[in-house]
């Protein structure tokens, strides 16, 4: 298939570019990337970090953290069903993830149940269904990878999916930058200016679902929400410009994913956990040391204000 060839050569080119950057590192750090699976893991990490970083800004500013958590848990039954039917896991994952987010919206709109209750209800129900189905399947390491993530075990097919998700996310956010910005900032105004607010809303949710599905094998169902919250939250502490926030958030996502990958190889620990811990560490640094919104800067301003003047 020509599309497959295109994706393969794109992956080759991106890997080659990354290896150039790896070549600048000291030998002790660069050595593991001699291996093919490490190169694949590195490219996947960069793509997942960047895509999650992009989406993370919208998640943080729209207060969608719980929604992200809900969608990521809701993909489990889809993964299990796809496994039973012999389909690629991401098809099932995307379908149940998307259905759950639509279900949440429907409950919210047509009943008196508030959105956080609707989310808590829908995603636990979906997750429970996933667990019940999995308990009937003989243990599969692949399913464990999806629960907890294992970037070292990423296969070519999953890498292509991640690449596709990254391209879709970057293109969508670029092409629809202004409507997305306005919808996130002030949906009422977006409506008044004649933008199709519900199309933007569901488009953003579908993009979120796609990103989650593409990140499953890297960080896993349980931890993917961290990659959708922490980079954006870190960036929000560091800037008062939306464009800059997107850039910082992508940077935090990539740095966490790559550093987490290296640490997990070095220390022989779970990659998903290592990636999320690096991201949380970066957040902690920003929380303390951010120039305007950090705790130290706030203390400093208060101290200067209260300083007795002689």
């Amino acid at each position: 298939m020509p599309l497959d060839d295109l994706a393969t050569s794109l992956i080759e080119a991106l890997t080659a570019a990354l290896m150039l950057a790896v070549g600048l590192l000291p030998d002790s750090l660069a050595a593991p990337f001699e291996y093919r699976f490490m190169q694949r893991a590195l490219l996947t990490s960069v793509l997942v970090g960047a895509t999650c970083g992009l989406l993370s800004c919208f998640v943080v500013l729209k207060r969608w953290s719980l929604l992200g958590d809900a969608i990521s848990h809701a993909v489990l039954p889809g993964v299990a069903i796809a496994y039973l039917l012999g389909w690629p896991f991401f098809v099932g994952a995307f379908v149940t993830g998307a259905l759950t987010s639509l279900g949440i919206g429907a409950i919210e709109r047509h009943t008196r149940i508030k959105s956080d209750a609707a989310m808590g209800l829908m995603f636990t129900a979906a997750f429970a269904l996933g667990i019940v189905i999995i308990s009937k399947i003989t243990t599969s390491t692949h399913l464990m990878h999806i629960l907890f993530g294992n970037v070292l075990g990423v296969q070519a097919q999953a890498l292509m999916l991640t690449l596709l998700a990254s391209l879709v996310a970057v293109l969508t956010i670029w092409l629809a930058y202004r409507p997305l910005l306005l919808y996130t900032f002030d949906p009422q105004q977006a409506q008044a200016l004649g933008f199709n607010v519900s199309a933007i809303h569901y488009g953003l949710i579908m993009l979120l679902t796609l990103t989650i599905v593409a990140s499953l094998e890297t960080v896993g169902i349980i931890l993917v929400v961290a990659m959708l919250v922490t980079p954006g939250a870190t960036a929000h502490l560091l800037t008062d410009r939306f464009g800059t926030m997107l850039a910082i958030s992508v940077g935090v996502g990539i740095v966490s994913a790559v550093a987490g990958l290296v640490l997990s190889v070095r220390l022989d620990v779970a990659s998903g956990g290592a990636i999320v811990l690096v991201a949380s560490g970066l957040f902690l640094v920003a929380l303390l040391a951010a120039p305007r919104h950090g705790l130290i800067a706030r203390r400093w301003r208060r101290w200067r204000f209260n300083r007795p003047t002689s």
Partner: protein
Amino acid sequence: MVSPATDGTPALEIKGLYAAYGQEPVLENISLSLPRGQWTAIVGPNGGGKSSLLSVVVGSLSPLRGELRILGQPSLAQRQAGCIAYMAQQERMEWDFPISVRDTVMTGRFGLMRQDPLWRRLLPRHWANPEHRLAVEEALEAVDMTELSARPIGALSGGQKKRVMLARALAQRAPILLLDEPLAGIDPPSEALIMAALQRQRRAGTTIIMVTHDLAGTRRHADQVLLINRTVVGMGAPEEMLKDSMLARLAVGATRMPAGEAPVAA
């Protein structure tokens, strides 16, 4: 954009409009016609449907039935054409959003940017059509916010925030301005700035439709007053509508109006 033609098409025309939030009716049998180029103040008790009426006009509340035309066309088409600038009450805004004052005002131009060529829309704002930037600078100047234009909006006072929201509406250069309590809870200097900017707009021929509780300002500046309490209680010149007898009738509201009685004619 529809040019302010000289024929008699009203700025806003509503016939037999009903709207509700869930089970709760908020607007009942609203019919009105607001002429172009005038300043209309909408006055009524809290919960009387003033803001809901504006919500219907800008499409965030769907009417149960009834007809609504803006400059003779359906609302959505006119909103997409940039004919309406809307300044909402600001409680529902996300003030922590990382955006500067100038970029906030620029969001008012986002609707009009859809008419720009594709290549301009794909580039950052530095390459935006100069017309957009000019409109933004003018609007900032009109509310005296040029000096603070690089500030994040979260760092502004209440009055400054209102001025920025008005600047965003002015930046659209729309023939109709819809304002929902632009003077609520602000400092006197900001109020004076906003009223001065609106008077300039009125003189330039913009139609102003403004929900307000400021009766003194309405007496001074409005061309006409629309009294609303679930339905139209009256519409006419400020000195007529703001008489004690009319205000008393407004407070009683639609529920006690004898069936079939027509609202006071304009």
